[in-house]
């Protein structure tokens, strides 16, 4: 993503900012490493990785920990 991460609004759609499907794999793997979790298959969908906070990703992480 060609944007400064510090300027990304936590409600912004990351796909609108340039997140690709392949980059979402990196996001998933990095989050798994950072929080020592594993994303279950049922949350591996586009919306899971779309938002930084208060989106599906946040809820998925909460459910996985």
């Amino acid at each position, binding site marked *: 993503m060609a944007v400064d991460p510090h300027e990304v609004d936590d409600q912004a759609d990351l796909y609108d900012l340039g997140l690709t499907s392949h980059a979402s794999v990196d996001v998933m793997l990095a989050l798994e490493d950072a929080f020592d979790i594993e994303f279950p298959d*049922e949350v591996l969908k586009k919306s899971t990785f779309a938002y930084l906070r208060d989106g599906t990703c946040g809820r998925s992480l909460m459910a996985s920990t």
Partner: protein
Amino acid sequence: MITVPGEVDGHRVRVGCDVVAIEDVQDSLAAFGDRYLRKVFTASEINDCRGSNRVHRLAARFAAKEAVIKAFAQPDMPFPWREIEVTRDGPLPLLRLSGALAERAQDQGWLNSSLSLSHADCHAMAVVLVVCGGSAGGTRDDAQA
């Protein structure tokens, strides 16, 4: 003005495509190594991609997985990447689904598919064409549209 039919001989046809930057796959391999491979690709796919042009082959297979997801036309459905597998029949790439995605394809009436892969130095791409049967899948899709 004409309305272009989405059916051929009574069969609905779906198409999905995707393009992946080779550099992105290379970066993921460098950052996550085998974890990246095992999360996204089946053991058979990893084995098929050994040798020359390994990264390009992996990128083409990732593009195929994304193309298949698009062919489902349900943007927020779960997409366990390993349930979408690219196999080979000689020089021809074939598509194999398993698990929940295989069930979803059956629900949508998927009858047959054709897959094409390609790559250049910088990108890999895939196109999948799916032929669907009868009205059962169509009814379900229409209901969810």
